[in-house]
């Protein structure tokens, strides 16, 4: 925990932003205004933020079906995101993508992706561009424990090694792949499997922002130095169901409450930085309040945003046709 107050303030705010964005969606969702599948990231905030705080302007990230956290951590506009989730014409993707396809190319955010395991080879491709530019930029993919069993993920790892690309693989084990525990579907273990391709892996406690930040710092440095791909393996949990509406029969009813009470990422940062005297409780409360009101704004504005019309349905299939 050698970070300066500004860095911590920013990271804490990012984590709080993700948390409140997701907790609020969990409240809004049952009201019926939000369409489609919504996969929430609450509980894993330290991973997205711990990794993305190590990134630079020209780096790329690619996300998963559970993309809000990665988008926010990468700096996507929360209001644009909320409008997108509500299917508004002025959402980040004009209401055509929704929760599962939020992207912002101007931020180097190559999209959430509804196909599990599809993002990894794409991110490897972005790493080809990074290498060609020679500016030390890197490309990052996020991969769930369940997704890690998809063949494309292994192909991506192998390809990144063969081409010696600046590619960071972030493996997020949140305990579940839909309704199945992550241990069930993984032959061997995530670390050994990744190392088998010749990729160094830094492990982290995914509830602990500092742990993730430090692991990512090393892994990112490896990539930027031109040493080829690297990986971060972080373990945490998701606080909500696989998607909103999931009755979670597979889960002990106290499981999440225990995590929330003991190792919650936000709680941990707050305790550590106040105890260490880096930031005061009051400063953190201010951030919390600011974020809460921002989220209020986002939801209010999204609820009444403009509906997309036929022109939006028919456009952007091609650039020129």
């Amino acid at each position, binding site marked *: 925990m050698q970070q300066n107050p500004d860095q911590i303030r920013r990271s804490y705010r990012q984590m709080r932003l993700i948390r409140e964005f997701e907790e609020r969606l969990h409240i809004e969702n049952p009201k019926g205004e939000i369409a489609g599948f919504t996969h929430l990231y609450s509980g894993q905030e330290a991973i997205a933020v711990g990794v993305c705080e190590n990134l630079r302007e020209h780096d790329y990230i690619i996300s998963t079906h559970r993309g809000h956290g990665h988008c926010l951590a990468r700096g996507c506009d929360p209001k644009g995101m909320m409008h997108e989730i509500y299917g508004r014409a002025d959402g980040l993707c004009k209401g055509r993508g929704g929760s599962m396809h939020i992207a912002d190319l101007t931020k180097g955010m190559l999209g959430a992706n509804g196909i599990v395991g599809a993002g990894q080879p794409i991110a490897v491709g972005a790493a080809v561009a990074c290498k060609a530019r020679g500016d030390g930029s890197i490309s990052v993919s996020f991969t769930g424990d369940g997704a890690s069993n998809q063949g494309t993920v292994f192909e991506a790892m192998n390809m990144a090694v063969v081409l010696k690309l600046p590619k960071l693989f972030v493996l997020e084990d949140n305990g579940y792949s839909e309704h199945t*525990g992550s241990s069930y579907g993984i032959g061997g273990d995530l670390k050994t499997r990744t190392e088998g391709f010749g990729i160094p892996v830094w492990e982290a406690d995914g509830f602990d922002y500092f742990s993730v930040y430090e692991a990512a710092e090393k892994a990112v440095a490896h990539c930027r130095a031109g040493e080829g791909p690297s990986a971060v393996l972080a373990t945490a949990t998701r606080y909500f169901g696989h998607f909103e509406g999931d009755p979670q029969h597979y889960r002990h009813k106290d499981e999440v409450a225990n995590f929330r009470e003991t190792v919650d990422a936000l709680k941990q940062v707050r305790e550590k930085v106040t105890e260490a005297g880096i930031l005061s409780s009051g400063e953190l409360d201010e951030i919390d309040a600011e974020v809460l009101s921002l989220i209020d704004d986002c939801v209010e504005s999204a609820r009444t945003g403009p509906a997309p019309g036929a022109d939006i349905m028919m456009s952007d299939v091609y650039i020129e046709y």
Partner: protein
Amino acid sequence: MGEMTMRDALNAALKEEMERDDSVIVMGEDVSGGAGGTSGKRDAAGGIFGVTKGLLPQFGEDRVIDTPISESAIVGLANGAALAGMRPVAELMFADFVGVSFDQIFNQMAKFRYMFGGKAKTPVVLRMAMGAGMNAAAQHSQTIYPILSSVPGLKVCVPSSPADAKGMLKQAIRDDDPVVFFEHKALYARKGPVPDGDIVVPFGEAALLREGRDVTVVAIARMVQFAAKAVDKLAEEGITCDLIDMRTTSPIDEETILESLSQTGRLVVVDESNPICSIASEIAGLAASEGYHDLMAPVQKVTAPHTPVPFARELERMYVPGPANIEAAIRSVLENE
């Protein structure tokens, strides 16, 4: 004859076939669920749409196989088990995931028998949920039966009612050829009458749901319902249509369609897919060749536009052909001679 949802009808078909034949096994992601979870409860999912619910408790882990997220391997698993004498029913969850498993469908299961000189049989059933209606956007809403129907060696089912769903799934399981079985998401919860007992619906026989004089309306899966609405509405005005539910898009029951066309002289084809190289194109093409001499007006294809499936409610509603589009198409073939 009871009323049940398509979901329950499919579930019953699986259960009955598994009881009847030990070689029937089920596999896929979360077909039971709960393995490795902290509640200790298995069958926690029973399939993401609940179609395989209750099978694990009854038939055990050796016959109801939860898999990792590895669709190529899931379909491969089914293919290999079938070559080795079993009757696997693999679930692909969303039809869009054909993307990640296409080789095992397109180059493997469809071709074994032919390539291997007729010595192999590959009695795989590949179940998948298709279609818009859940605002699941571009990668979870497609109806790709045209692509699958174009592949020689595959049979393709697109049931529109609970009874057909049950009877066709039973036929699919007993069939010695590989069958791709599409279940429309928007139909799972719809109820309909299902005859008691062991019903089997043969493939390649379309169903004539309404009889009429004026127009032949051919529809698929969810579009059958919308077409029925349009047809019933027009009937009140005295415009009557033959309404044909294709039921399988491979094989195609060309006879029933051409026979109806020979009576009406007018054709509307309703297909939720994108328009190019669709089943709508195929049937329209059939009318231009085999049906030419009967055709008294331009064929109308009613399809989704040539765009991915959009997310927002307003957009998805525009994207999916509805009763109003079908009604307009029927009127137009009557006007335009």
